[in-house]
């Protein structure tokens, strides 16, 4: 059967992934209504009891965790409050914070700080920000004499004519001084943000102080610290911002995709660190609601990885997001169909058939044998069915997963090319450990040995300390380099590599910074400059892997396993990334180095077979397996290695080392 729909009628089931909780989506309140109610109860408990509450939400990939957070966001930021003493209509009821955990777990607080500030400055349709609403609400609470409502305060705050009003200094400064004690810088930056001055610079400082040039500090009138950004510093800022809110207008922290923190499914440390952060937030404030989302299949490892006391704080309430049964699935499909304006008239004529153009029986194959299915799979199935009815052709997937991953990688890399230099640190901190793992995992990422050394890569007794030096401010950079000089003289056995975005020059006038850099180089440290293309590829790699870990990378409704993505990346890794990693670990991938007498035979066999198991390569080349393994570890950018079992090697030759004849062949 083919539907006679107007040409260009969009498929209402096309979107199956909710990007974040700020996105507006068609909603069916009955779906996961119990979990929604549990979150609302916890929210009211924070307001009433003036102490923290927490909810742990879990469900399968595509069960609707992010969608539920979106519903909570709309409910809390838009709904009027009925509570006595609470904010009024149009003010929202909380500071809503959505934190997707695609980050390096050792930088959790820094990631939270950045997200907190971004969401605090989130602008609603009426033009107000969460920060302005929060301040208006606090002022209204404190305005016991005249009892002006929060809306009136909000209008006053937003009026540009009041920017230089003396009232600001009388009211705002003492309040900030009291709440943000003892941080003068935080106080000053908030003052600028609230009064609408130097918003760009103040917002950037609040997100992370390393990322500012000297001129911005001068403008804000705050002193630049030479300590750089640290987890402790970020924690202080987060707690300082929490103190601005009150239990009557709590801070709702929504942590999504806990599992995306893991570099592999055996990685327990990331979960442990999240547990510590959550418990610390719970202990240090009286106005926070923590909502954490995790996949059901990671729930057991999560419980095992974190301390019991931390789990008790993060999971004071646990709610499951069950797969949908037929009744709810049909409601979901019906609501999507209703949202299509092109279908509206046709559906109005067939009021009795709530699923039109589908029949309930058409949808039956979309359910599992026990009659349930996740929302995402239901939508993907309905989407294929709709396509089939619309075009008259059986909906089939146009490409295999490999083709899909290739396109997706390229799409993400292209999008990331616009990424600014301030984001480089985040991409590198999260992406490099994932890249090391993708390249076979011979180089292990060890614990951060020092504040200024972001990770330690080790392989067979060789150790490389990597320090990300993307500070815009020469003073911050200089201080870091000075500390690194001291660190290197204490750790001579570790090779130090400094990574800096090539878009961030080291000024000629920064004499001291240059002196420290020279001193480090003389001691054997290497400076590795990264270009935007490499960073974009790294960003694409990390987002692809994180989405796969979180079950958010799907092809035709089926989630693609992280192992599949890892394998695809191993085989199709971007040349620039391989060369970059080679530079970081100090391995030259030049032809003459690899083509030594000792290894010539091995490479010959590898070239012949392209992909071969370790045992077979050892047998054919006549070299012991251990020698081959060492060779692969020394040349991660030249010889591909898949851990197995059994370990498999593949011939990897970036174009720059291929002879012209071979290139043409390829």
């Amino acid at each position, binding site marked *: 059967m083919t539907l006679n729909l107007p040409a260009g009628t969009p498929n209402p089931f096309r979107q199956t992934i909710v990007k974040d909780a700020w996105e507006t989506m068609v909603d069916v309140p009955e779906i996961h209504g*119990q979990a929604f109610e549990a979150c609302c109860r916890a929210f009211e408990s924070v307001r009433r009891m003036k102490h923290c509450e927490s909810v742990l939400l*879990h469900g399968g*990939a595509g069960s609707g965790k992010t969608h539920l957070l979106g519903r909570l966001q709309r409910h809390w930021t838009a709904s009027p409050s009925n509570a006595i003493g609470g904010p009024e209509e149009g003010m929202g009821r909380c500071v809503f914070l959505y934190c997707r955990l695609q980050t390096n777990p050792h930088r959790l607080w820094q990631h939270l700080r950045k997200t907190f500030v971004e969401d605090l400055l989130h602008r609603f349709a009426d033009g107000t920000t969460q920060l302005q609403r929060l301040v208006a609400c606090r002022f209204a609470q404190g305005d016991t004499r005249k009892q002006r409502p929060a809306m009136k305060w909000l209008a006053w705050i937003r009026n540009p004519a009041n920017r230089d009003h003396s009232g600001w200094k009388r009211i705002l400064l003492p309040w900030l001084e009291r709440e943000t004690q003892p941080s003068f810088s935080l106080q000053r930056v908030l003052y600028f943000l609230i009064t609408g001055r130097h918003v760009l610079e103040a917002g950037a400082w609040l997100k992370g102080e390393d990322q500012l040039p000297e001129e911005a500090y001068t403008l804000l009138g705050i002193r630049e610290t030479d300590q750089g950004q640290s987890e402790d510093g970020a924690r202080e800022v987060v707690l300082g911002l929490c103190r601005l809110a009150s239990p009557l207008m709590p801070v709702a922290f929504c942590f999504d995709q806990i599992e995306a923190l893991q570099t592999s499914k055996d990685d327990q440390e990331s979960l442990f660190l999240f547990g510590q952060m959550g418990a610390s937030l719970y202990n*240090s404030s009286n106005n926070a609601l923590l909502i954490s989302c995790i996949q*059901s299949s990671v729930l057991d490892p999560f419980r095992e990885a974190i301390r019991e006391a931390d789990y008790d704080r993060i999971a004071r309430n646990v*709610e*499951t997001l069950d797969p949908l049964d037929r009744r709810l699935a049909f409601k979901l499909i019906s609501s999507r169909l209703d949202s299509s304006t092109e279908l509206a008239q046709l559906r109005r004529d067939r009021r009795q058939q709530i699923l039109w153009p589908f029949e309930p029986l058409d949808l039956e194959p979309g359910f599992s*044998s026990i009659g*349930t299915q996740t929302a995402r799979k239901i939508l993907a199935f309905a989407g294929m069915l709709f396509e089939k009815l619309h075009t008259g052709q059986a909906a089939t997937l146009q490409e295999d997963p490999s083709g899909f991953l290739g396109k997706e990688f390229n799409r993400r890399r292209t999008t990331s090319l616009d990424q600014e230099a301030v984001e480089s640190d985040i991409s590198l901190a999260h992406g490099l450990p994932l890249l090391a793992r993708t390249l076979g995992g011979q180089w292990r990422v060890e614990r951060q040995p020092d504040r200024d050394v972001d990770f330690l890569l080790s392989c067979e007794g060789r150790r490389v300390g990597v320090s990300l030096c993307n500070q815009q401010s020469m003073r911050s950079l200089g201080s870091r380099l000075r500390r690194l000089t001291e660190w290197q003289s204490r750790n001579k056995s570790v090779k130090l590599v400094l990574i800096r975005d090539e878009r961030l020059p080291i000024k000629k006038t920064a004499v001291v910074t240059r002196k420290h850099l020279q001193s480090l180089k003389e001691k054997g440290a290497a400076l590795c400059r990264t270009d935007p293309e490499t960073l974009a590829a790294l960003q694409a790699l990390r987002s692809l892997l994180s989405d796969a870990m979180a079950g958010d990378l799907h092809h035709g409704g089926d989630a693609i396993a*992280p192992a599949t993505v890892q394998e695809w990346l191993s085989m199709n890794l971007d040349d620039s990334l391989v060369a970059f990693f080679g530079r970081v670990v100090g391995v030259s991938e030049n032809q003459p180095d690899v083509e030594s007498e000792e290894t010539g035979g091995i490479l010959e066999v590898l070239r012949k077979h392209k992909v071969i198991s370790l045992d077979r390569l050892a047998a054919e080349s006549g070299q012991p397996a251990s020698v081959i393994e060492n060779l692969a570890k020394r040349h991660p950018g030249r010889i591909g290695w898949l851990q197995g079992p059994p370990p498999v090697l593949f011939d990897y030759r970036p174009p720059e080392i291929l002879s012209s004849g071979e290139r043409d062949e390829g």
Partner: protein
Amino acid sequence: MTSEKQDAIRSVLKHSHEPQSTPQIRKEILKRYPVAPKELTALLESMVAAGEVFPWPRKKFWDRDPRKTTPRLILEFLDTSPVAAVGAIKRALKLPLEFIQTALEALVNDGRVHPWQPGATVYYCLFEPDAAAKEAMAEALADGPLDQKELLARLRNRLPGYQARHLKELVPKSGQVVEHPRIGKRKVRYGLNPPAPGPYLDKAVREVLDAHKLLSPCRVSLEAILEALEVRLGLKEKKARVPERRGEGESPEAEGLVLEGMARLQPFGQKRALVSIRELRRSLNLPRGDFDGAVLALARKNRVALHHHDFPAGLTPSQQEELVRDEGGTYYVGIVLKEAS
């Protein structure tokens, strides 16, 4: 001479256990040096300006900073009076309200003191009110069921101002307290165990006896009536069906055991937490087929929801063995009671 007098003041304040008034300090110093009240006041003022001595309320002085000392004093006080309102703390410590409120706010933020607000008054305590109420409730009910009034009286011993509405919220959350339905004139009661059904059956027993009285002339025994009742209540029929249904791969007994096992493995206070299939299988020790059949049957009957594993291919064969697999090849990792609709 001035510095010697200042030393004497320092010594007096250092050894005092509480703030001292000017006459008290003078009395102590007079034992060593003559000092006029005006001179002493001037000396104290200069020491205050130098930050060596701190002014305390009621024109007293001490060498300890009231802002730093107040939190400790509050904690000491709450150690002896477990739940206290700001007013009571203020009266006991004899400090200005502003000091007390600032210190309490800091203590609450640090999680060392918890607020408790049953009505208009905010009380403060060293324990977490919800947890304390749960503990007090468990203690009170340990000796047997209590009605609401009795239970509230016991809870108020621990948390003053505890209201019936708090109890109504706490009972479902606690997960261990059962509300016994009202019967006749007896009010709703709360207990740690399910209510004994006997008292609820009085009317039914009377009717059974009436039926027996009616049928006994026809030689119908009380046992026969009981047997008929069992059939009518579905108890006999259920037992008779067991072997037949087992043959079809479904076992109500196994299903019952699965549900019981799930309830046992729920964390304290939770009703709908996901139970790991692996843990449930281990705890029940049922034959593999029975367990898998019961879990899938309960899901089909809409009694439970099953959560699947997204990437079962990444599991080892032994890990896959521990899960439940349906006909479609989907592996299930978790089971949870169905969300009430």
